[in-house]
């Protein structure tokens, strides 16, 4: 499945069918097996650091794939997502997205990517309304210095409706709960009609029902609009629709397998055992602290 703006908007919210742009249909002509993200021996170092956060990463992602990235804390999962969208400069290797180098075409690439960053904790006094935050995700598509049109606002509203947050349109984001803020950030990423979604712990603050609803929405965007999804998550397991599972440790990919293979691999089992042990220690410490 390849990407099309129209199919994206229809999958996002059927109400948008009236304002779809017929010109975007030509995007459907592209093949469905193209590699949309290509990393070759990519090494990224944070400013001021000497030790690379991710090292010698090679990865190929095809259009329309769903990838789950797992690994212990500090494994480099967030850095990998930031490297893919070109926010972090590369020290070595190369990263190409949509066939463009992130070094040269970072801004252009990011206009076609939706990135939900890890847990944002907004101050209750933050002067940003929900509608404006969602609009921010669409700014790249609107263009620098260009006016926000009625159509843009309709897509902003549709994105909020898609995540069940339309009632919070004019509310300050800082006054919302962590889960509601999370949904707004997801809506913001969707408002940009992304071809690729990079999701960093998007379900972290959501309850079980909300996790299910958001996951179903993402799945719909993937199935109907061909949106490629790379998701870092500890809260959803590995859903059956996942194409590939990437396991990271110490800034390296130590496993890159199809879901069925990954779930039975000793590495994955070891990671799950380690996670459960860590969770046990964390819960025990929390209980002791509460006592």
């Amino acid at each position, binding site marked *: 499945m390849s990407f099309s703006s129209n199919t994206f908007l229809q999958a996002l919210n059927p109400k948008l069918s009236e304002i779809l742009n017929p010109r975007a249909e030509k995007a459907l002509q592209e093949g469905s097996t193209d590699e949309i993200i290509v990393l070759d021996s990519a090494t990224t170092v944070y400013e001021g650091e000497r030790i690379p956060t991710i090292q010698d990463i090679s990865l190929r992602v095809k259009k329309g794939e769903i990838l789950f990235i797992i690994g212990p804390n500090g494994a480099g999962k967030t850095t990998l997502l930031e490297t893919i969208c070109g*926010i972090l400069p590369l020290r070595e290797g190369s990263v190409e997205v949509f066939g463009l180098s992130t070094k040269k075409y970072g801004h252009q690439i990011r206009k076609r990517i939706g990135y939900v960053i890890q847990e944002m904790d907004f101050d209750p*006094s933050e002067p940003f*309304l929900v509608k404006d935050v969602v609009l*921010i*995700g669409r*700014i*790249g598509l609107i263009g*620098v*210095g260009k006016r926000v049109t009625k159509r843009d606002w309709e897509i902003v509203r549709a994105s909020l409706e898609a995540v069940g947050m339309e009632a919070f349109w004019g509310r300050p984001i800082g006054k919302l709960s962590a889960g509601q803020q999370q949904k707004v950030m997801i809506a913001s990423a969707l408002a940009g009609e992304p071809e690729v979604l990079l999701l960093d712990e998007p379900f972290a603050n959501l309850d079980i029902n909300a996790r299910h609803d958001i996951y179903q929405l993402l799945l719909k965007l993937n199935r109907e609009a061909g949106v490629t999804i790379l998701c870092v998550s500890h809260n959803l397991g590995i859903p059956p629709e996942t194409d590939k599972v990437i396991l990271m440790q110490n800034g390296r990919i130590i496993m890159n397998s199809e879901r069925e293979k990954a779930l039975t691999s000793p590495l994955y089992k070891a990671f799950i055992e380690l996670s459960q042990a860590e969770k046990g220690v964390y819960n025990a410490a929390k209980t002791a602290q509460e006592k």
Partner: protein
Amino acid sequence: MDLLFLFSRLSLQLLFKVILGATLAGMACSLIGVFVVHLKITAIGFSMSHAAFAGAALGLLINSYLSFDPLISASIFAIAVALLLGPMSEKTRLNPNVVLGIIFTLSLALGFIFLSFLPSGVVSSEAVQILWGSVFGLDWLDFLLLGLVNLAIVAIIIIFYKEFLATMFHRKVALAAGINVSFFNFLILFLTALTVSFTLKIVGALLVYALIVNPTSTVYQFAYDTKKIFIFSPVVGIISAIGGVLLSFMTNFPIGSSIIIVSSIIFVVSVIFSPKKRRGIVQQHQ
């Protein structure tokens, strides 16, 4: 002193100049203040105003030998801070606040060295004006330039409002949306440098920073919408500036000091009545 008595002593033209100067300075500073306060770059405003002071002092020194407008050197110094800050922080791998601290003290030192070389008559008039501000020394060209700076700031904010909104919201989110955050950050620094330089004569180098920060901080106590902050900060800025000028006339305090006293009083009152503060207390108790 009775205000009516005071106004009767001022010519209509002078009164117009005073009000116009205060309005333009209050508007420009408080508009820039929205960026400075929200991006928490108050140290930049502080360092920039002192760099402008050093530049203006150098300009005065040159002017005592050749005909030279100190505004030019003040602008050059302030813009130099905007240009140097990023690369200096990166090259030296120091926290920008450390670099700003050095720029601030160096500017102050240079400013006083330049002033010390001025002929005594100049020190007592123009130098004091640059330090503490005055609207009496302004000519129509100063007003025109300040008016143009205001126009440029308003136009740039209107054209790039959504880009500024994203830049102020969250650097990473703005970057991820495809915005050239470095460019807009530089644009903010450049406009700050320009504003500081052009309002130097009215508010004074040592106090212009407060007129940048106080009005926006006041509006922040009540507003949850960035657009409203952009609209109401200049209103508070203009009220502070005009109020300060009137206070200065009544008390004979320097104009810059008077403006800061008025804007600080408005800020304290806003904090007392701030609904955000009240909610914060409620949340803490819960």
